[in-house]
Structure formats: structure tokens, C-alpha cells
């Protein structure tokens, strides 16, 4: 029998970092399901590959750093990073893209900066950007929705494409991506961007088969899935409402202004919201607390900045989607935002520095 000493407070809310991470992974399930439904097994395979790589990489680095492996390995942060990366990759990207990306995310972006809580950048997005810049060909080979494909792609076909580059029948990725009519299909954002450079109007672009009735076949549902997951997270108080809110609002306002100014060359606000990785970014990536701003005011600014950047890059930049770049740029700005959005301490007057 022994007495023991602890520092107050003695009771504690039963929440843990790992639980938080698990919750976020669960919340991604609707989006992943939509992705599977519309694009097949590709992303699931990538997610699996990324998770395995991430765990191996995390384990290696933690043992090299003499850290407690059991607690840190399963705190869920590495798995979450891997899941997010797997979701973002093109479904038919070769397997080594995932391995490199996942390894880079965990070892370089996360652990080399000091591990969980010390990384200035969102690991998944940093890895994505690295891959996009290093392997532009593989990273832009987006698979069109299954419904638009000329052939039927099964799990075995996807596996074969990812690991060998060809389906068992001998089709390459390029051939898979080709529409029945003989042209290569891209993502809706890509399509619009290409069409605008070709001198077509947005309305004309909207006729493209990948876009379908609304904002892109499958893409609207994937985004809806992530929105659902995000609302679930908000409901669970796992994430703060501030960043997604300000991000979506900012994107809405920017695209609205753009649309007002030149309706011909600008897509609608809802197109911006429901294509690409907008909802994933809003609820799963920008809300990453480690690389984001901390105060309420700071988060509002952070989200708004991200929205503005996404719009600017989508509209004027060289890349069709912009979430990853916008997130990295905002990550860089986060410490500065924090510095200037410190709340006024109780009993202190604003602006009076000691």
C-alpha cells in the first residue's frame, strides 16, 4: 500500500490524441467510399500501401531516435497522414509513387522536424507536392470515373496497373484514360483549365464528359462524402469550425467575385466547392492542428488565406488543383499569424506590452 503524488488537476477529460486521430480516419470513410464507388480500387490500394510504408518508416525512425515505439507508433498520426496521402494520389499511379511519398511524408516532413507536434508542414500535402513536382507525368495520370471508361476495370486490373503499369490484358494507363471517342480524359479542373487555355468558355467546358451533370462525375459525391465526414468531426468537436468555415467562405467569395467579373472564363462557386480536393482540404487537411494556426482569430485568417490561395492558383496558376500548394503556403504563414493574433490576456489592456 502506498500513497502517491500527482500534480493537479487530478481528473482529466477522457480524450487522447490517438482517439482524435482515429476519429478523423473514421470520418474520411464516406469520402473514401465514394472514391471507391466512382473510381474503383486504385485509391484503396494506394491507401493500404501508404499506411504500410508509413508504419514501417515511423517504426524505423522512432527506433533510431530511441523513442517509445508502442505509444507513438499507434498514436494514429502516421496512419492518418498515409490515408490522406493515399486519398490524394491518382488512382492508377504506380506503386512506388506511394512508397516514396509516404516515406517522404513520415521521415522527412514529420520526423526530421522532431516528430508529432513539431512539423511545420502538413506531411501528406508536403509529400504530395514533392511527388507532383518530381514525377509530373505519373502524378497527372488521373483515372476518369469508371462509368466513363471504355473498359471494365476490376481489382486485379487495378493491382496489375499499379504494380506493372499494364492491365493483364496489356492496356497501359494512357489507354485506360482514353475516352471511347478517342481523347484522353482528365479531372474536371484539368479539363476546364485546358479548355480555357484553348479559348473555350467555361460553359463549353462543362459539356465535357468528365464533368457530367454537375461539377464532375464522381467528384461531387466524393466531396460530399468528405463534407459529411467533416460535419461529423465538427459535431464530435474533433476539429474547430473556424478553419473550414473561413476557407470555404473565402473560396466562395473569391470565386463569386471572379464569376461576376468574367462569367465566361470563371467557373461557378459550387464548382470550386465540389471539385478537386476542396472538401478534403477544408475538413481534413487545413484542420491539422500541428501545422495550422492556434487561436480562433488566427484560424479564421489561416482559412481565409488558404481559400484565396486556392482560388488564385486554380485560376492563374500552372496546376489545376491548388489545395496542396495553398496548404503549404499557409503552413509557412501560420507562426506569423499566431504571432499577431495572440489574444488579450485577462486583466491586460490590448496593445500594452510588458
Amino acid at each position, binding site marked *: 500500500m502506498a500513497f502517491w503524488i500527482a500534480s493537479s488537476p487530478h481528473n482529466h477529460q477522457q480524450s487522447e490524441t490517438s482517439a482524435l486521430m482515429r476519429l478523423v480516419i473514421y470520418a474520411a470513410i464516406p469520402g473514401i467510399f465514394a472514391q471507391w464507388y466512382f473510381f474503383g480500387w486504385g485509391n484503396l490500394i494506394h491507401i493500404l500501401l501508404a499506411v504500410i510504408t508509413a508504419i514501417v518508416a515511423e517504426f524505423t525512425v522512432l527506433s533510431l531516435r530511441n523513442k517509445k515505439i508502442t505509444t507513438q507508433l499507434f498514436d494514429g498520426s502516421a496512419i492518418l497522414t498515409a490515408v490522406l496521402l493515399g486519398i490524394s494520389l491518382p488512382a492508377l499511379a504506380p506503386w512506388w509513387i506511394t512508397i516514396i511519398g509516404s516515406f517522404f511524408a513520415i521521415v522527412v516532413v514529420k520526423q526530421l522536424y522532431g516528430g508529432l507536434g513539431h512539423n511545420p508542414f502538413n506531411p501528406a500535402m508536403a509529400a504530395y507536392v514533392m511527388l507532383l513536382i518530381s514525377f509530373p507525368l505519373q502524378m497527372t495520370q488521373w483515372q476518369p470515373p469508371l462509368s466513363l471508361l471504355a473498359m471494365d476495370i476490376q481489382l486485379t486490373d487495378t493491382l496489375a496497373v499499379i504494380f506493372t503499369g499494364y492491365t493483364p490484358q496489356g492496356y497501359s494507363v494512357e489507354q485506360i484514360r482514353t475516352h471511347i471517342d478517342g481523347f484522353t480524359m482528365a479531372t474536371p479542373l484539368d479539363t476546364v483549365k485546358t479548355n480555357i487555355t484553348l479559348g473555350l468558355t467555361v460553359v463549353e467546358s462543362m459539356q465535357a464528359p468528365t464533368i457530367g451533370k454537375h461539377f464532375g462525375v464522381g467528384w461531387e459525391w466524393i466531396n460530399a462524402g468528405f463534407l459529411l465526414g467533416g460535419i461529423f468531426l465538427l459535431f464530435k468537436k474533433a476539429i474547430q469550425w473556424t478553419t473550414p468555415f473561413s476557407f470555404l467562405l473565402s473560396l466562395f467569395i473569391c470565386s463569386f467575385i471572379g464569376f461576376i467579373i468574367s462569367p465566361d472564363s470563371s467557373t461557378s462557386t459550387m464548382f470550386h466547392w465540389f471539385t478537386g480536393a476542396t472538401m478534403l482540404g477544408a475538413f481534413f487537411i487545413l484542420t491539422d492542428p500541428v501545422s495550422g494556426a*492556434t487561436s480562433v482569430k488566427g484560424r479564421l485568417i489561416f482559412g481565409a488565406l488558404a481559400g484565396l490561395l486556392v482560388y488564385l492558383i486554380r485560376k492563374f496558376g500552372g496546376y489545376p488543383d491548388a489545395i496542396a500548394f495553398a496548404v503549404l503556403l499557409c503552413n509557412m504563414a501560420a507562426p506569423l499569424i499566431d504571432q499577431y493574433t495572440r*489574444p488579450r490576456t485577462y486583466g491586460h489592456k490590448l496593445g500594452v506590452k510588458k
Partner: protein
Amino acid sequence: MESVIERIQRGNFWQFHGGIHPPEQKFLTCTKPIASAQIPEQLIIPIRQHIGQAGDLIVKVGDKVLKGQELSASDTPMSLPIHAPTSGTITAIKSMAIPHPSGLSETCVILTPDGEDTWKQRHICPDFQLLSKAKILEKIANAGISGMGGAGFPTQVKVSTLAKIDYLIINAAECEPYITADDLLIQEHSPTILDGIKIVDHLLNPKNILIGIEDNKTKAIDALKKATADIDHIQVCVIPTKYPSGGEKQLIQILTGQEVPSGVLPSSLGIVMQNVATCFAIADAVINDTPLIKRVVTVSGQALEKPQNVWALIGTPVGFLTSQCGYNNSKNRHLIMGGPMMGFSLPHDQIPVIKSTNCILAPSEIEIASPFSSTSSKEVECIRCGQCADVCPAQLLPQELQWSAKAKDQPQLSKLNLFDCIECGACAYVCPSQIPLVHYYRVAKAEIRQQKLLDIKAEKAKVRFEARKQRLEREKIARAEKHKKAAEARKARMNAGTTAAKSEKSAVADALARVKAKKAQASINANTTDSSTESTAENAMAKNTAENTAEAVTQVDQIDESKSQVANAIARAKAKKLAQKNQAQIDSLDTLQDNESTSSLTSSQAAPVVIDKKAKIAAAIAKAKAKKRQAEPVSNSANTQADHIQASVIEANNVEATTEILKPEVHAKETAIDEKAHQAKDITSSGKINNSAEASENKQQSKPQPASQNDTLNLDRKAKIAAAVAKAKAKKLAEKSQQGSDATSSTIESNQASELTSQANIAANTVANKKARVAAAIAKAKAKKLAASSDKSSTSE
């Protein structure tokens, strides 16, 4: 804009930032009545139970005290007295563990109750309105009341504020989970609490009195509303339950919308806050003349069979209360004093209840996991989720504070207003990474406080060091100045041509002569190796003597005691050397003895000489002259061997003559040893004069000089005594030499020596003069040595 009161009446309050809703767990105790106080076997009463200084103890071990009797007295406003919670005996006053997070010990009074609970005489005062304000304040101070909500700030300081008070806020919020002590106190004693509020109202005369109470205490709210229904300026404010609304700053913000500026007391805003329990204690003290000796303590937690509120005497060990409530947790124990949010762990259950103890929590493993259990979660890295900042009632940035605290970045910590943290624990409560944030802040705060103290201390040390350096510099300059002046004065005297100047000059001359003599001696030593042993020995002895004396003279210049002692030591060493030579050359025994006697005389003279400067100088002159005389032939003889031998023979003759003169005297002494003893015993002036006369005679005989007379005359009492002792020794030496040459038995010799020693001792004792004693001791030592040496010589003979 509506007034604060209007808003309150509409039930519309302000909000403070953040806050949390931990499980309240008040149901465990809030429905049970307060159990009456029981007297434990022993009460441990710390003498300091509040913020401030301890009072002075006015009881001692073994005293019998009555209930309510003062155990310590306070003299300053920040010190409070303590009282005996029941009647009994003080069995010990010792250092015991006190209720403090550190578990450190402080002085406690141990009271063993007699079980009779006899009150001291009390003066009940039914109407406090009849008392003057000063009298009420005195009563509050004498009752030892300090804030009973947690911090323990002396109450009379709070209620004697001179500031104009707009709001008196009675804090009944009790926002911490588990604690229901105030709740129950209001339910059962609302009239007394109201009396207390009225007393404080009378003292402070505030415009409004607001009673802040959380809406989860329905019964207490009813009781308060009923009690205050007919008083206009008292508002019972039912505020929403949220931790930490009971914090002073938070409650002020909720009720008045004002923020207490950092580092300022609420009284500067015209707000004073009192806890309900304190109000109860005030009423008890002023009306019933009952000092603060008991309080309501919530003993709660699921490890207890009967969690309940109890009246506990101050000083009751926690273990007594938990066993009273059926504590049955046999495995890992965790006792918390205070609530689960801000309380602290106790190292054992013999910690006493003090004035600010409102709760003892004995949680089960399910409620609060121990660090040993598998269910407890460990600290992981901060993920910057920002939940801590969202709940912080002081609107701090806990995570940034945490990083700075870990990095020990003290400037950044103070920039982030660490000291505005009220340590409520809300941040650590919500942290998903289980970081003990508050602990980091406490450590950082303690470090900063310590660092500030160290800085102050370093600054003080620096100032003192600089001051000391300056002082030493000043002293050095002053000393140099003094020396310069002394040198100038000496120069002036030498130039004046007075006798003193002459003597000084002669001293210089003497020194020169001495150097010459030494040189000569060196050459002689080299030359005389092949000459006859006798003459060489004689010569060497003579020279030694000369040198010896010269040395002694040199020492005369020295002023302080220690130096004269050194001189004596040197002389003694010389004597030793001589004695050794004596042993080697028995044929020249006579001469040797004489030499020795001379040397001992000189050295023993050195001591008394010290005492009187004039005497010293005179003696120096005398001796210098003697030396000159000795040295001169020596230096002459350095030229030729023959001359030198001649001179030494002459000297030896001189010395022999002295010995011969001494001898008869010694004989006379021998015959009348008893007489001598008498003489020494009552060293009256007459005896001394005799002795000194003898000494001077001796000197005149051996070295006829006019100066030696001066010397003797100038000697004061002490010198005279010393001289006498020295003379006695000289005589003894003569005796010994005689006996040695006669080769009589050594037994007699030693007897005589011891007799002489005792004589010297007696002389020393009678005079009771330190310096004389020193001289005597030296003389004694010499006598012994000589006795030994002559003993040796005789044996070898």
C-alpha cells in the same frame, strides 16, 4: 446602458473566457447533513495556516489549554493567531508535515485533547451594531480568520480596506467538482452567514452585496433567497455552472463585467470578495466570540463508504476523517486535499486539516487513475490543437507557455503573462496529449521567483563586494600615509641630533657592524680550521654570543608580542646550538656556560624590553655597544690568525671573569634556596628591586656599560619580573656549570632545576601578567633544556 444591478436582476450575466464542465460529482455529499465534529486522539495545529507570517507561540510543552484559547499571538496584520480547537495538553511543539503540495514540514503544536472540550471564558455579543468598527476588526483578527476558500488571505486585512467599496461579493459559487462544504453550510446555517454578511456590510458599507452561487445548488439558493428576501441591496446571483466561475477574478467578471487588472487587488476597483464560510466564521467570532477552530470539510470520493460533509476541528489528521467516513481502499491510496482540479496530493494521512481545507478527496481508481494503473494515460507530444487556449479563463496561450516553460525561456514566459495563470487546471483537463500543463507552469513560476531572488542577491553581493574593495583600498592608502609620516618623523628626529637620534643612528651603525661581524666570522671560520681546538671553540662561542646578542637586539625593534616571541624562539634556538657545542667541547665548559648565561639573559631580556619602547631602545643601545666591543676585536683579528686568537682569548677571559663573578653568587644562592623561594613567592616591589639590582650588577660586572643601568632603571614592573626570572636562570646556569665541572651527581642538578622552575612558575602566577608569563615560560623552558644539556655533559664526563 443598463446598470449592473438591472442586468443581474434580469439574470443576465457576463461571461468569462473559456471554462470547462468537469463531472460535478456533488451528488455524493450534497444531500447528507453535516456530521458533527469528533475529537481525534491528537490534533496537529500548524502555526502558520494562511498567507503571511506565523504568530509567536505563547504556550509551551506541557501547558494545559482550554478550547478556544490562543496558542500564538500576532503582532502584525499579516500574521494570525491560532487557537486550541479543544481543551487538552500541549504534548509537543515540533516540525511536522503541513498541508502543502510540497509535503514539507513546519512548526506545529501537538495538542492531546482531554476529551472534556472545556471552553475558555467567552463574551457573547448579541448585537454587533453596539461595537465599534475597530472592535469588530480586532475581534476578527483575534479569532484568526483567514480566507476559507483556498488561498487563506487574512480576513481582517480584506475587510479593513479604506477604499470605497461598490460591490461586496459573497463567493458561494463552489465550482470545483465534489466539494459541497459551502453548499451544506448555506443550507444549514444561512442565518449565521447572513449575520456575517451584515457584519462585513457594516464594516465596508458597500453599495451592493452580490452573492454569487452556481445554479446547481438549488437548496442553498432557496435558503439564501429566503434569508435575504427582505434586504434590498443584497442580490442572490444564480450563475450558470461552469468551472472555474468560483475564481475571484472570474466571479467578478461574471457579476460585474469588470476585469481585475493584472497585479492589482480587486479593492482598487471597489470590489471585495468574501467566501461564505469566511462570513460564517466572522459571525461566529464577532457574535459568539468563537475563534476559527473548526470548519466544514467535504470528505468525498468513491473510495469512501460514507462520503459526507463533516465539521472538523482545525488540526484533525486527514486519516481520522477518512476512517470516520469509511475509507476502504486497501491498494494504492490517493488522498487529495482540495478538489480534483486544484487540490494537491497528500504524502500520508497524518496531515492536519487547516483553515483553508475545504475538501478531502479519496477517489477510487475508476474516478482518478493512479499513475501505476494501466488505464492511466501518459503525456505525449503537444499537437497544437489549441483546446487549452480555448478553455483558459485567463485567455493565456497554454501551449506556447508550455514550450517556453520546457525551454526555460523566462523572458518569453513573462511576455506571455505566465503570472496571470490562476492554475485552475482547465488546460490540463482538456489536453488530449495529457500534458500536465499546470505543473510546468508551477515549476516555471517557482523558477522565475527563485531567479528574481537570486538576481537581487547577486546585485547585493556585487554592491557589498565593491564596497569592500573600496574599503580595502582606503585602508591601504591610509596605511601608506601613516608609514610615510612615521618615516618623515624619524628622519626629522635623526637630523635633530638629540640623544634619541643618536641612539637611532647607533642602531643603524650597529646593524652595519653586525653585518661586518658576520662576514668576519665567516672568514674566521674558514681560517681557523687548523688552529687549536680550544681557541677555535672559544672563538666560535664568543662569536656566537655576539651574533646571538646582535640578533636579539635586532628583534628589539619589533613591536608586537608575537615578534618578540619569535625573537625569543631564535634566542632559544641559539642557546640550543650552544648547548650542543657545549657537549662537544667539555674542556671549555666554563666559558660555554658563561656564554649561555649571557645568551639566555639577552633573550629573556628581549621579552621585557618589548613592553616599554624606551626601555627597549635603551637596552638595544646597551647591547649594541656590547656587541660592538665584541665585534671590533673580531673584525680586527680577521686579518691575522694570531691577532684573532689573542682577541678571542681576551674575550674568553672577559667571559670567564663574568662566570667567576657569578659563581660565588650562585654559591650563596645555593645555600639559601629557601630564601629565594620566598622572595619569588611574594614578588613584592622590594624583592623585585633586589632582583633587578642584582641583574644590573651582573651586567655591570660582565659588561661594564653606563647604558645597562639606564636599561634596568627604565624597566617597568613586568620587565623587572621577567628580568628577575631570567636572572634566576642565569644563576642556575652558573650553578649547573659549576656542578657540571665538578661532576657532581645529576640528580641534585635536576632537583635544583625543577626547584627553579617552580620558582619561576610561582613568580608567574603571582604576577598574573600575561607577558611576564610568556617570559617566564621561556625562561622555564630554557632552564629545563640547560638542565638537560648539562646533565648530558656531566654524564659524558
